[in-house]
């Protein structure tokens, strides 16, 4: 989803052994590029993103997870699935190098709300 919403921020901390999940709505999506084809590598998220009430939540939207999340083949070949420790504060820049680490979206609520008001502010008509 972050591909189409540049203000979404990935967690990007060192991922652990916890497996990322997807909710019913997001089921089948690649967590990086939203592709529905060729799922390949299982998504691992960091322990903090899988802690307490976050456990089993959808990686993309935070909803209740129903299935395991995968990276698609293309993102795997480009190594967007691997994780290294890039400082989280820079990770919102939509560049290639930052697409590593835990892919859990950490600021979903605000971005959705912001979007609503942004639309209103600039007078976009509701479709």
């Amino acid at each position, binding site marked *: 989803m972050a591909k189409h919403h540049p203000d979404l921020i990935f967690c990007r901390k*060192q*991922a*652990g*052994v*916890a497996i990322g999940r997807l909710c019913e709505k997001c089921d089948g999506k690649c967590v990086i590029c939203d592709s529905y084809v060729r799922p390949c590598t299982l998504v*691992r998220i*960091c*322990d903090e993103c899988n802690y307490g009430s976050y456990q089993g939540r959808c990686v993309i939207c935070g909803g209740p997870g129903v299935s395991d999340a995968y990276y698609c083949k293309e993102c795997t*070949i480009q*190594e967007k*699935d*691997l*994780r*290294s*420790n890039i400082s989280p504060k820079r990770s919102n820049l939509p560049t290639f190098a930052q697409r*590593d680490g835990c892919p859990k979206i950490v600021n979903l609520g605000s971005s959705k709300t912001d979007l609503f008001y942004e639309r209103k502010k600039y007078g976009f008509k509701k479709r």
Partner: protein
Amino acid sequence: MFLYNLTLQRATGISFAIHGNFSGTKQQEIVVSRGKILELLRPDPNTGKVHTLLTVEVFGVIRSLMAFRLTGGTKDYIVVGSDSGRIVILEYQPSKNMFEKIHQETFGKSGCRRIVPGQFLAVDPKGRAVMISAIEKQKLVYILNRDAAARLTISSPLEAHKANTLVYHVVGVDVGFENPMFACLEMDYEEADNDPTGEAAANTQQTLTFYELDLGLNHVVRKYSEPLEEHGNFLITVPGGSDGPSGVLICSENYITYKNFGDQPDIRCPIPRRRNDLDDPERGMIFVCSATHKTKSMFFFLAQTEQGDIFKITLETDEDMVTEIRLKYFDTVPVAAAMCVLKTGFLFVASEFGNHYLYQIAHLGDDDEEPEFSSAMPLEEGDTFFFQPRPLKNLVLVDELDSLSPILFCQIADLANEDTPQLYVACGRGPRSSLRVLRHGLEVSEMAVSELPGNPNAVWTVRRHIEDEFDAYIIVSFVNATLVLSIGETVEEVTDSGFLGTTPTLSCSLLGDDALVQVYPDGIRHIRADKRVNEWKTPGKKTIVKCAVNQRQVVIALTGGELVYFEMDPSGQLNEYTERKEMSADVVCMSLANVPPGEQRSRFLAVGLVDNTVRIISLDPSNGVLLRTVLDPVTGDLSDTRTRYLGSRPVKLFRVRMQGQEAVLAMSSRSWLSYSYQSRFHLTPLSYETLEFASGFASEQCPEGIVAISTNTLRILALEKLGAVFNQVAFPLQYTPRKFVIHPESNNLIIIETDHNAYTEATKAQRKQQMAEEMVEAAGEDERELAAEMAAAFLNENLPESIFGAPKAGNGQWASVIRVMNPIQGNTLDLVQLEQNEAAFSVAVCRFSNTGEDWYVLVGVAKDLILNPRSVAGGFVYTYKLVNNGEKLEFLHKTPVEEVPAAIAPFQGRVLIGVGKLLRVYDLGKKKLLRKCENKHIANYISGIQTIGHRVIVSDVQESFIWVRYKRNENQLIIFADDTYPRWVTTASLLDYDTVAGADKFGNICVVRLPPNTNDEVDEDPTGNKALWDRGLLNGASQKAEVIMNYHVGETVLSLQKTTLIPGGSESLVYTTLSGGIGILVPFTSHEDHDFFQHVEMHLRSEHPPLCGRDHLSFRSYYFPVKNVIDGDLCEQFNSMEPNKQKNVSEELDRTPPEVSKKLEDIRTRYAF
């Protein structure tokens, strides 16, 4: 063009070696890494031989390797740090003989990067945690544990990062069962980076840092850090808990230091040096590798210096406080990359260069008169101890593993006139270098050879009782007699065995539990254990022509194609079956399978007839009918037929045992052994004389041998190096061989050998003399005589440099020789020693058009070359005339040039010489070579020159290939094309007029070709003006070559040659690598083949991913995307997959698993072996 890559011989150099109980039994094994190959070795404690159990290519760079065992476990796991950005934990499965990936945790990007962990691995000695570290900044700690089902579990990684630090080494500190602790040699460069004056950089100190994993908090803390006085290069962990004082030993330049927490003062001991060493005295001494031996009551360390001397290090303790480090000279072995001490008392030394060794530790060096050095001995700062190196005293060599690493040059030619070409390989480094001649074949070790009175025609071995381990008799059959030999300590003739000696024998064997049977032309003789003899005579004038025997059954064929069947009944009687079987033609051969365990008889008999058919006859008497199946090999009814041409004579087959498995020895004009080794079927010729008849042989001295006859001798042979593709003969050389050329008339080799940091013989003798004089001068008046004696002894002392190493002369000191060698006998015909600091870099043998038939050898020599920062005083081209039928070099003249002449090639009756970045044509003159023409536009440094017609293809050291055309009329060298990629070319080979294959120093092979319109245009351009003035983009040539194929081998390739490897085979591109590997690239002949292998590769990539976690496609595309090459090494892993996976893959390909493996084998045998 589509190519298929095959490895003929895997890399032989070892980068890491670890030991442990990987199979989970009491026996210790060694796991070695050979760059991209993981191999499991088992030293046999009884015979002292090292056997390879498993070799797996991992398609990634193995950067670190560690063994660990969970607390209370009995089985060791293998942790692999590689360039895959993943940590992989492997377990060896002895039942399936394979490594199983238990865990694969991703933590970073792939590739060998600065901040992606993988370079260093350290395990907690109690097996609770593992630290994986990068060269810079990042360190991750994984906690290992067991789940309820006793399976290994791994935690999420814990971070122990510190920015701006470099890591030199990491070890796990033995703290018993307290929180796991890791010690790192680190350097913080933050201040040095921010200080432009350079003052901080000069003062930066290395630190020893301890990281503690708090198991309670699940967190890693940087516990303690301390600056070090000397710069350390590695750490040795000291046993702790109940076994020792804990802490670490820091190995640094000239010193070894013990450090631990708390009140423990540092204990520091200088590293002893050789007495009267020729090395530069300013040069420091470091330890390069170590091994720890620990038993319940004691422990010690063996540490090796860079000269190869091993020291035994022991620690003296006083109530868990270390008071003293003691060092004792142990022995000297070649410098190792890794050492392992095994519980059975063996020391495995994986040499840095050349062959690897297994030594037995005969003495621990406790009670000899060798002086012991101690940290408690008072010494001035900067002073050190001295010792005298000596031949082996505590170690006994028991096995040697051949290693070609490093291969610096190779040429393939049939110089010995043997039909099959040989590989002439220049390998090794410094005094351990050699020229090896490789021939395809299995090395045979001869155990015994004895003359016989006549020419025998057959030989068998029999046991006396079915449960005997070893054979009892050897039966040799002559034209009219039979000789019986008994096997014991020696082999002697006996007459009381019960065998009939006055007749030839057709076959003999053990029958039932303890009886023997002898089949001879007139009958069958059944010898019972108590020497009672039953005889069966052939009816009438008929004689037995062929027979087949197993443990319970005998089938004979009489003249005329009649088969008679006998079977042994429970009482041990041999009974004839009344029903006989007439065959339609004469029987030429027949065979019975062994009786399956638990059954009375083998149910089928195979009979080969004159009419080219093989018939299978059922011997099952229960239904009373002879079932007959005719299998016609011509139409292919016999499934999975694989044909190989073995030789010019009819083939005889013999069943033998190899490594506990059945193998077949096939004899024609050459003997071949067909056996299965590491789940691959091998058919290898024996590098031995022609044999006529053979049989398996087992005795105490030789449990798996072969007894064979060859003309009138009886030979007992053993095959020890199963799995080896090449049989090698090595001839030692003095310095590192750089290149050689073959003189085409005499087939002699002209080799140039050059070493950096070395003395020539003359300088060495001079230095020695000087040191001896100093010794005498330094002595006082009364000691003068003693000193003179010592000096004389020093001058006479001559320790072999191949073990003790050559003295290191210092930077910018070069030594070089030019050698003429006969490659068949290996004798040196002529040797020219160059002066100190003259380094030979190139050699060519050529004729000049102005001197007629004489051959000349040109050697390009650099003078006073300093590598870094680079400077050179100039160069010379030495010209020698080859006289005495190519056996002697006659010095003509030397031509000074301004740079290093790194490449020489004959060209149209003159020579092309690459002098630095200048390409020149020289002709032979009376006083020196005469410069005729020059091109100054090559980018950096000419590393090689190839010529074809008027074209010259120059390889630049970092700018790939440049095509140059020589215009004879204008006398100009004109660049007309180049490549678009920057390749750091090491070697090149022409494939055709437009195409060149090259390899670069990063381990890639490429083929580039000029587009079809290029050559025409340039050849027609009469002036060459266009190419001369019409420069392309960024000073490149106006025309560009196209890339035909790209492939990453993974090891630096140093020679490429287009050649045929087997007589009647097709041409292939053969390459050799620095790590000692030999491989080929072969073209596909049909589109179907290519399509098939492409699919095999595709399926294997997904079904059988590489072991260390690196993606196969991305490994083969390391520097350039792989293009038009299919990896046969991956395809051949099909054979080692599990059967159900094999079935899945082959179903996808619409074939059966045997068909796929046959196809894999076919393409290999068509081009090579």
